[in-house]
Each structure stands twice: as structure tokens, then as C-alpha cells.
């Protein structure tokens, strides 16, 4: 680990080159976004595309403004966020716990394997009507959908992480006299932390799919509801505005997990 003050001029040059390259990448990223938005706006204003069908950035911004002042946007955001987060946490915790059981008992794993395979390949949306009948047409059904979509992937990812533990390290612990519980807590769980983080990242996406899909099926509030409603009454401004808000929320949630990764996995160079 080198200190910052003893760089040679050549190294300083190298650092400058890397930094310039990074800056260019960032500038280009923003340029694409701004140019895209500008192009969209200009095409809409000049009438080359019909903004009734495609909407346009300025209309999206005013729509978000009216949503905030008149239609209680934060309430809809809150509803969707609540459903997504609850679905996310239930799927993650239950998925982790079930994966632990499957790691612990090989027999259990072998018995349940075909069920997991079938549940994994089943399109969970097909269970929509069943879920509505069981849970009613409220938040409960939507959370159930989010959990259902997330949990199988969580189980499979986590179990693979547990099973990938180096057998030599297990042998080492056994030679020290470790029991199975110690092997789990000293080796398998800390060793699979990187897998846990990638499972969280996958689960963020799954939870959003689940909650929005759930809201498409049954809901009287939420961002998914706004999107479906906007589509039905042909208000594309509303559809686009809700989608933009959704993008921002999903990105923030992913960023939170990425931040957690930096905090938790601090032993890598």
C-alpha cells in the first residue's frame, strides 16, 4: 500500500491518464442522456413524432409536478416501496434460511431438488389468479407475488454459494475437531458472503418485477397502478412519468446494496 506522496513523475502521468479516461467516460454517459432527451423533445416540438403517443421530457416533468401537487405521488411511491421492500426482505431471509437447511441435510436437498427445479421454471405470473383468490386484491397479494418471484432464485443462488465451499478448508476445520455447526458459522457463512451480496443484487431486481407485476394484476395504488391506469386511459405522460420515478427508486435500492458490499467485504485488496 503506497502512500500518495512518493509518486514518480511517470506515475503521476499514468494517474492523470487514468483519471482523464474516467472523466471522459462520465462525460459521455451524461452526453448520451442529455442528447437523447433533447432529441426526443425537439422531435416532439417540431411534430415529427406525436407526443400524444410518445410523450416528451418536458411533459413528463410537468406530469411529475402535477402528480406531486394534485395526485399524491409520494403516497403511490410509498405503497410500491413498501410492497417491494417487504417482498425483498421476506424473500431474502426465507431464501437464506431454506438454503441453510438444504446445505445442512443432503437428503433434504436431494428430496426437494425436483420441486425447486419445477418452481424455478414455472412463470410465477401464472399463479396470479390463485394468489388473488387466496390473498384478496390488496397489498398482501402483491407482496406474496414479490416473495414468490424472489425466493426461488434466492434459494438457488445461496445454496450454490454454500456448496462451493472449498472441501480442503472443511477438511482443515474437521482436523481441528470442528463440528458441523462450527463449519457452518466459521467457514460456510462468512465464505459465502460475496455470494450473499450478489444474491441481494439479484433479489432487488426480482422484488421490483414482483411488486410491479402484482400491481398490474390487482391494485388501487402504487407506481404499477399509475402505469396501468395511464395506459388504459391513454395518458402516456402518466405512464412515462411513473416509469421514470420507478427507475430512480430501483437504482437507489441497487446503490444501497452496492454500498453495503463495500462496507461488508473489506478484506479484498
Amino acid at each position, binding site marked *: 500500500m503506497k502512500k500518495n506522496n512518493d509518486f514518480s513523475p511517470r506515475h503521476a502521468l499514468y494517474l492523470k491518464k487514468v483519471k482523464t479516461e474516467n472523466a471522459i467516460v462520465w462525460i459521455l454517459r451524461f452526453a448520451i442522456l442529455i442528447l437523447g432527451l433533447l432529441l426526443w423533445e425537439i422531435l416532439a416540438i417540431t411534430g415529427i413524432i406525436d407526443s400524444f403517443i410518445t410523450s416528451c421530457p418536458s411533459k413528463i416533468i410537468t406530469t411529475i409536478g402535477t402528480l406531486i401537487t394534485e395526485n399524491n405521488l409520494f403516497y403511490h411511491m410509498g405503497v410500491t416501496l413498501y410492497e417491494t421492500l417487504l417482498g425483498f426482505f421476506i424473500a431474502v431471509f426465507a431464501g437464506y434460511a431454506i438454503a441453510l437447511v438444504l446445505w445442512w441435510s443432503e437428503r433434504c436437498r436431494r428430496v426437494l431438488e425436483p420441486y425447486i427445479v419445477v418452481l424455478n421454471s414455472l412463470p410465477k405470473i401464472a399463479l396470479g389468479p390463485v394468489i388473488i383468490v387466496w390473498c384478496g386484491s390488496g397489498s398482501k397479494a402483491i407482496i406474496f407475488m414479490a416473495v414468490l418471484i424472489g425466493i426461488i432464485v434466492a434459494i438457488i443462488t445461496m445454496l450454490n454459494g454454500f456448496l462451493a465451499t472449498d472441501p480442503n*478448508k472443511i477438511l482443515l476445520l474437521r482436523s*481441528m475437531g470442528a463440528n458441523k455447526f462450527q463449519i457452518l458459522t466459521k467457514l460456510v457463512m*462468512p*465464505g459465502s458472503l460475496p455470494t450473499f451480496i450478489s444474491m441481494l443484487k439479484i433479489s432487488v431486481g426480482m422484488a421490483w418485477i414482483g411488486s410491479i407485476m402484482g400491481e398490474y394484476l390487482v391494485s388501487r395504488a402504487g407506481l404499477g397502478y399509475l402505469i396501468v391506469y395511464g395506459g388504459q386511459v391513454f395518458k402516456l405522460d402518466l405512464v412515462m412519468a411513473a416509469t421514470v420515478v420507478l427507475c430512480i427508486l430501483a437504482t437507489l435500492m441497487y446503490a444501497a446494496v452496492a454500498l453495503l458490499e463495500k462496507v461488508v467485504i473489506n*478484506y*479484498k*485488496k
Partner: protein
Amino acid sequence: MNKLLELKDVSFTYQTMTDEITAIENLTFSCDDGQFVSIIGPSGCGKTTILSLIAGLLQPTSGSISFEGKKLTGRNESLGYMLQKDQLFPWRTIEKNVLLPLEIKGKNTPENRKYALNLLEKYGLKDFIKNYPDQLSGGMRQRAALIRTLVSEPKLLLLDEPFSALDYQTRLSVCDDVYNIIKEEKKTTVLVTHDISEAISMSDIILVLTARPSKVKSVHKPQIKGDSPLRRRENPEFGSWFEKIWRELN
């Protein structure tokens, strides 16, 4: 000298769906207190299985293993196992890695921790105890792995090709390093290897095994003069021993 470890007519057979494989057949050897014994043989001859048997992680199909004069029935308690690669846990600091056996055995007491820290200091790792394994060189990591096996004060060390993952240059110096620490701590050691020169330069006794099912083919006592493996490699006798054992293996 006291016999620390004795294997009598030990055989081990394992089952697969298609076959029943005898890995070891009527293996007999013993090892005195403070001796360095190497087991060398063609690859796939069940060397690692022998170590697992001595560690009590596997039970022999027939024959008996005694440790300190008592027949071994379960896991061997006073033993340190060192494997290929250092197997340090990357998420633990060097200090936490070294304390792992104490945690497992529920002996993480202040005195034992002090003993562990003394070992780290004695063998030049004191400045690195708060570092993670990724920040250390291969040689230092191997030394940390050896200290980890020493902290529970084992009577017997088992080394399973501990240097095979290192490059040649590092290997020679780590070999010297490990040997000196083992002699300093006066530990009895069984080393499994396929490297003939490693075996000759380190051991008091070398057992040459046959291909599977493994038996002892011959026993050698090189006793080359020199106070370290590197010095012994320079001794003229070294070459003739190498040729002798090389011929037996082929």
C-alpha cells in the same frame, strides 16, 4: 526414544458405485518422538488417505493405529494438519486466522492467545497480525499457516504437500523456514510429498510406497549432514540418495 505413532497392518478400502478400491494394504510403520518422517510415492497412491487415517478422520478397514501407546478410535486430538496451499481464510486477519483452532476447540483463553501472539512475534509476523492474507507474500502466508497449526500445541504435525502450490524459488526458502520452525518447536512430523529432493533434505526417515494398493516398498534413513534442508541439498551425498529413491519410484 518413545514411539509416538504406530501403524500396524493398516488397510483402507473405499466404495464407489462401480468398484471397491483398496487404497492402502497392510501398511506398517512407526514414528518416534521428534522424528521427521516423509512418505513418498507415485501420484494417486493414497498418501492423503494415510494422513486422514492418522488424523482419525477416517477409520481403517483393518489393522490398528496407536498414538502415544493408545489405540486411536476417534479423531486424534493432539495433531496439527497443514494442507496444500495455506488455506488461510481471506476474510480473517492473520491474527484471527491463527486463533481459529483455539476458537474451534473452545480454548480461546488469554494465556493461549498470548502463546499464539508470541509465536507470531518469534517468527516475524508481529507487524502483520492486523493484515489480511491477500496482503502477504506466499512465504509469509505459509508461515502463518504453520503457526496456525502450532497454536493448539499439537504433538504431531501432518504436512500434506504443503509447498506444492509455491514457485520453485519460494519453495526452497519456505521449506527451510518451515523445517527450522518445526525443529525449534521440537515437533514430530509426518510429511507427504511427491518431491524427492524435498523428502531427502528434510527427513530422518523416508518411506517409499508402492502404487495402489499402497504398501511400504522400502525405508531409508538419509541422515545427511547439514543444519538446514538447503545445506543438505548442497551435500555430495544428496545426489546419490536422490538417484537411489528415484530409481525405486520408477
